[in-house]
């Protein structure tokens, strides 16, 4: 693949109750967000095991974004408080290992924030475009 053709793959883990509904709202409101984003619905953002993030990269993702309810709004009361700590540590570790910071992101998106969802996705995909193809966390077997 030459550089000019680079089209990233972005995986978005969205919580069922807020962010996934937010994405829905973005869709029904006819707001544009990039087709590079592939959404995976999870019951709660705290369902996202660090292994999921790594495996998304392994299978060819160039960026991974996790979306959940705003702190305080979790459908399960406290799920996203755990997410907050876990993902902070994970991102910090990835940074420590020399993985580009821009490849991972976490954003709180409520069911009412269709606009925010679209904006966040646009911005994140743009950021991944700038970073280019994921090289540091890739598994060549899944690319060839």
């Amino acid at each position: 693949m030459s550089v000019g053709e680079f089209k990233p793959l972005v995986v978005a883990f969205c919580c069922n109750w807020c962010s996934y509904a937010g994405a829905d709202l973005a869709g029904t409101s006819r707001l544009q967000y990039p087709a590079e984003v592939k959404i995976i619905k999870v019951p709660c953002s705290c369902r996202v095991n660090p292994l999921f993030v790594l495996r998304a990269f392994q299978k060819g993702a160039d960026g991974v974004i996790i979306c959940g309810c705003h702190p305080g709004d979790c459908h399960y009361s406290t799920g996203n408080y755990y997410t907050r700590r876990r993902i902070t540590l994970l991102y910090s570790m990835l940074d420590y290992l020399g993985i580009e910071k821009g490849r991972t992101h976490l954003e709180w998106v409520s069911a009412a924030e269709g606009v925010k969802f679209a904006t966040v996705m646009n911005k994140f995909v743009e950021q991944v475009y700038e970073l280019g193809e994921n090289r540091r966390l890739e598994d060549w077997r899944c690319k060839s």
Partner: protein
Amino acid sequence: MYKIDKDNLPELFKFLTKNGTDVFAPVRKGNQVNFESFTDEVASTLDLDTLKTVRSPKDFVLPQVEHLFDATIENKQIKLETSPLADKPYVIFGVRPCDVKGIEVLDNVYLKDPVDKFYQARRAQGVIISLACTNPQQTCFCKSFNIDAANPQGDIAIWLINDSLNWKSLTDKGANLTTQVKHLLQESSDIDEVEACQKDIQLKIDALPYSRGLPLDKFTPDKLLEIFNDARWDELSKACIACGTCTFICPTCQCYDVKDYDAGKKVKRYRCWDSCMYSDFTLMAHGNSRNTQKERFRQRYMHKLVYHPDKHHGEFSCVGCGRCVNKCPSSLNIVKVIKSFEVDN
């Protein structure tokens, strides 16, 4: 016999790599010495003084991972694309006498009925240049397995005396390589010097703590059941934490697993080293024939000391390199096992 100065080795290696032969030689990185591919960058960190590389030269004939084929499934049709066999010549430089024997043990498994073609191809491409152990260490017990550290085997043998390498080719492969690099070697007839070096090595070996005879005569195939059922295995295996360190650094451990990796567009099948210390080694749908760590631990040592000799005319599949003595997290090792059988029950 030939000679070459230690300082001229990089030149020799460069000549070989330029002519399409990969060279692997012991290179120091941090606290460790391992066989690395020779490049200009590593020339300054060549290390012929450290006795043992952490990983054994088994890597070159039986790599930890070997791709077998790629499979694609399209429209219910399976297509296989077989991985090519090794076809690039290489030289492993500085293999210790015990490790040379280790490769011979692997040969006896992989080059016989049926021949393993991947192994055979790698083996055929390689020239082994062995290095006598001028400074054997106290974890060595090669003498117990009748390996002469002063008389290394392989294709070419080398004695390092006062920074100069005494070079003697032992096989046709070795002779061919010698001819190829003759212009970089000097003729030599210092047989006395080599003999003196050999004597010196043998004296040092004799003085090692483990050279005073391990009771290997206790391990004979006719006593297979008796040893297998011995109560001592319980005690011996208690400290084992079921890691694969001993297996993976061992120059003769030969078991492998066959695995598939589904990479989306294709499935990659490869084989990789496996360890009998792992619980899934013998796990089947209906159960496990070796359920406890004691059984797994016993399997490893029984294989080395009884099963392998039973199948291969009395040849032990341990060469006394001492790597397990050095590296076991729980300080277990084959010497402790052998010694514990010294007294009959």
